[in-house]
C-alpha cells in the first residue's frame, strides 16, 4: 500500500462544534470537494486529521506557499541513471491511490497553480498530467479538501471565482467558551479554571479584532499559553509571551491587551 505512511493510526483529538462531522461524512460519501474556512488556529487542520482517521482514509497534506508551482502538486520528471523518471507529486499520489488531499492555506498559492485542481473537482474527476501525457482517473476514494482563512483575504490574495464555486464549504469559528475551555484544558493539560480564564482572555482579544488586531488570540495560542502555565510559568507572564507579544508589535495595542488581560483575572 503506497500510502500507508499517510494513514492516521491514533485518533486525533477533536471536539465537534456542531454538525461538521456529519456534514463532512456526507460530503465524503459523495466525494464532494470541501472547503474549510475559518480564522487561524481554530482547528481546521485538526478537524481534517480527525475526519481522515474516522473515515479510515490516508491524508496527504500540502502547505501551500507563494512559490508553489503546479508541478510541485502534480509531479515532475527527475533525472536518474537510466534517464528520466516521473515522480508523482502529492496531489497525483492522492488521486491515484485514493487519499484525502488537503491543501492548507490554498490562497497562498498562486492562482495559476490552483487551477490544476479544476478537472478533479467536477464530474470528470480526472487529473491530466500534461508532461507525462497521462490522464489519471481519480481513485474512488480520492477527495480534495482545501482550507483558507478569510481574514487574510485581500485584493491580492483571493480564490478565483471559478475555483470557489467547485466546493462545498464548512465555516469554522472558535468554539464556544465552554467547549474551547475543554479543549484548552485537555490539550494543555491545565486545570479547568485556568482554561476558562484563558478562554475569557481570548474572547476579549477577539473583541479587539479591527481595533488594532487583525485576529484575536486563537485556540492554538491559548493551548500554548496553557502549556507554559503547566510548566510553572505565571499566568500573567504566560499570557504576555504566548498571547500579547506574538500577536502585535504595536506598543499601544500591547498595552491595551495587557490591561484587558488584567481585567479578566
Amino acid at each position: 500500500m503506497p500510502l500507508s505512511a499517510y494513514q492516521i493510526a491514533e485518533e486525533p483529538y477533536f471536539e465537534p462544534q456542531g454538525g461538521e462531522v456529519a456534514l463532512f461524512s456526507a460530503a465524503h460519501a459523495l466525494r464532494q470537494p470541501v472547503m474549510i474556512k475559518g480564522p487561524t488556529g481554530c482547528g481546521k487542520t485538526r478537524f481534517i486529521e480527525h475526519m481522515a482517521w474516522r473515515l479510515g482514509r490516508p491524508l496527504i497534506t500540502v502547505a501551500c506557499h507563494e512559490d508553489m508551482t503546479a508541478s510541485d502538486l502534480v509531479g515532475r520528471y527527475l533525472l536518474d541513471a537510466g534517464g528520466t523518471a516521473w515522480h508523482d507529486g502529492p496531489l497525483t499520489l492522492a488521486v491515484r491511490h485514493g487519499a484525502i488531499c488537503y491543501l492548507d492555506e490554498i490562497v497562498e498559492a498562486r492562482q495559476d497553480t490552483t487551477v490544476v485542481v479544476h478537472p478533479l473537482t467536477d464530474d470528470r474527476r480526472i487529473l491530466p498530467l500534461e508532461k507525462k501525457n497521462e490522464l489519471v482517473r481519480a481513485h474512488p476514494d480520492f477527495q480534495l479538501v482545501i482550507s483558507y482563512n478569510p481574514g487574510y483575504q485581500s485584493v491580492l490574495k483571493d480564490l478565483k471565482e471559478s475555483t470557489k464555486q467547485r466546493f462545498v464549504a464548512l465555516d469554522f469559528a472558535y468554539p464556544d467558551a465552554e467547549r474551547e475551555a475543554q479543549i484548552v484544558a485537555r490539550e494543555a493539560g491545565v486545570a479547568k479554571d485556568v482554561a476558562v480564564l484563558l478562554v475569557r482572555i481570548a474572547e476579549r482579544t477577539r473583541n479587539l479584532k479591527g481595533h488594532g488586531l487583525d485576529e484575536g488570540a486563537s485556540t492554538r495560542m491559548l493551548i500554548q499559553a496553557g502549556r507554559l502555565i503547566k510548566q510553572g510559568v505565571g499566568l500573567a507572564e504566560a499570557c504576555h509571551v504566548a498571547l500579547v507579544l506574538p500577536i502585535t508589535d504595536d506598543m499601544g495595542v500591547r498595552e491595551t491587551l495587557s490591561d484587558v488581560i488584567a481585567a479578566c483575572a
Partner: protein
Amino acid sequence: MTLSSPAKLDTSVLLPLEPEEEEERPLSERIPGLRRYLAGLYGARASLRALPGEGGTQVARRTSFDGRVLFLPEAYRGFRDETADRLYLAAVAHAGAHLAFGRARFEPKSLKPLQIALISLLEDARVEWLAMEALPGLRRLWRPFHDALALDKDGATATAEVLMARLALALFDPARPLDNPWLAKGRDMFFAAMPEWDDPGALRLLGSLLGNDLGQMRVQFNSKTYVVQPVYRDDNAGLWEFDRPPPPEEDDTSLAEAVRIETREKPPEPGERERREAGGESDPRPASLSPLDPDQWIAVARMPEWDHGAGRLRPDWATIVEATPRTAPAALVERWLEARPDVARRTAGLIRQAKVGRPARLRRQGEGDRLDLDAAVRAAIDLRAGFDPDTRVFERSALSERDLAMLVLLDISESTKDTIGGTATSVFSVLREAVAHLSAALAETGDRFALHAFCSNGRDEVRYRRVKEFAEPFGNAARSRLAGLRPGLSTRMGAALRVATREAARQLSHRRLVLVVTDGEPSDIDVTDPAYLVEDARKAVQEAAGAGVDVFCVGLDKTGETYLSRIFGRGNFVQIGKVEMLPDRLPQIYVRLTR
C-alpha cells in the same frame, strides 16, 4: 519586559497630588487606547470624546455618558501618571459596564433628586457586579478608588454624600462590616433583590425606599453640589429619560457641555482649525503662510473630461491651476515622524525588505548553481530523440531589481477635515502623517516617487499641488511643503488623475504607478449628477492604463466599495475602514503593489 502583571495593581497607592498640572499625557493620546480597551472588555463600541475642562468651578469632574458618546475629562484633578492611567481605564470600564449590561432608561416621573441619585447608585453597583462576574480583574481596578475615599473613618459627618459613597462601597464589597443600619439595610436589600436585577422596577423601588429613609433621618441632600463617588463613575445622565430639564444640576451642566462640544467640533473660523491641525501645539500660525501669496492660482493646463451622458470626451473642459506651494516649518514633519517611532521603524523595515527584493528563480540559464530540472530533462529527452539539446539547463536565484516610479496623489478635499470618530484628529492629519512616514522610508531607499495633491473648486479651478517631484529629494523643501498642505474644497478626481498620469508616464521606468489616496466619492460644486465624475474618473483610469500607468486607490471611506470598484476596477483598490491604521497600512500596500 513591559509586563503589567495583575499583582502590580494591588500595590497601587492613590496619593492625591497637588493640583498643579505638569505635563500630563493629553487625553487625545489616551483615547485610541481607551477605545480599544472598551472594545476589548465588552466588545462594545462608543464614541470617546473630551469634556472640555474650562473654568475651575466644578472641582470634581466625572465622565458623562449618554449611551453612545462617552465624554471624558481632559484631566482628573489630583490624579497623575500611573494613577491617572488607571483612573481612565476604570472610568471606561465602568461606562462600558453600563453599555454592556444597561437597559432602557429610567423614567424620573415623580422621583426626588435624592431618589434619582440613589437609584443611579444602585444601577452602578448592579452593572459593576455583572461586569465583575465576567471580568473579575475589574474589582482590582476599581477597588483603590473606593479605598481612596477613606470612608470608614469614624466621626465623618453623616451627610447624604458620605452615606451614599459608603453605600457604594458597601455594595461594591459586601463583606465589609457596617456600623450603620441604613447602609446595612441598603446592602442586604440590594443583594436580596439579586434574582430580580433584571427588572428595573426592583432597583427603582429599593432606591425610593432608601431615599425615603434618608429623608426621615433628616439627612440633607443638595443635588446641586452632589457628585458621584468614587471618581471613576460617570454622572449617570445616560440612565434617565429626562424630558424636562433634569432635577439634578450636574446633569444639566454635562448636557450643556455636550452641546458645547458639538459646536466646537466644527469651528467657524478656518484659522483655528489650521492652528489645531498644525500639530496640536498652541503656537501662532506658522509664520511662513503668508509672505508670497501662495493662493495665487495660475492656469497651467486644460484637461478633457468624460461626459458619460453624452458618451463623449469634452475637450479642454477642466482647468488645472497651480500656485506657489504653501509651506510650514519642515520640523513639523520631523515631529510627526518622531511621534510614532514604531510606525517609522516598521515602515522602514518593510520598505527596506521590499527594496532588496525577493529572490527570483531564474530558469534555463546558461550557467547557474543548480540544475534546472525541467530544462535538464528536456535536454536529456532531446538528446535521446536525436535533437540538438538546449544547453541552458541551469537555474540560479537572483534578487529582483525593481524599476519603478510611483506618484502618490492625495485627495485633500474638504471632507478630509472630518475628525475620526471621537477624537480631535482629522482624517487629513492622519493622511499627512501616513504620507510623511511613507515618504521618509522611500527617501531612505531611493525609490523614485513624487507626491502631489489635489482639490477642486468647479471645473475652472482644479487645484494641483506639487509637494514633491520625482527628481527632488524628500528634503526640507519638500517637507515644508507637506507640512504646509491644507485641506479644502471638492474632489474632481478625473482631471487630477489625468495630470498625474502625464507626470508618471514621463518617467523612464519599467513600471509606473499612480497611488490615489481618497476619502470620498468624486464631487464638485458644478456637478449635480453623482455618476458624472465617477464615470469621468473611471475614464481617466482607463486612459492611464492606455498610457502604461497603473492606478491603484486607497479608499478611506467605509462605504466606498461601489464607486471605488467602478472607478478603479475590482481588485485595484483597498478600503481602510479605520483611518488611524493608514500610517501602518500605506507602506504595506506600497510593498504589495511593487512586488
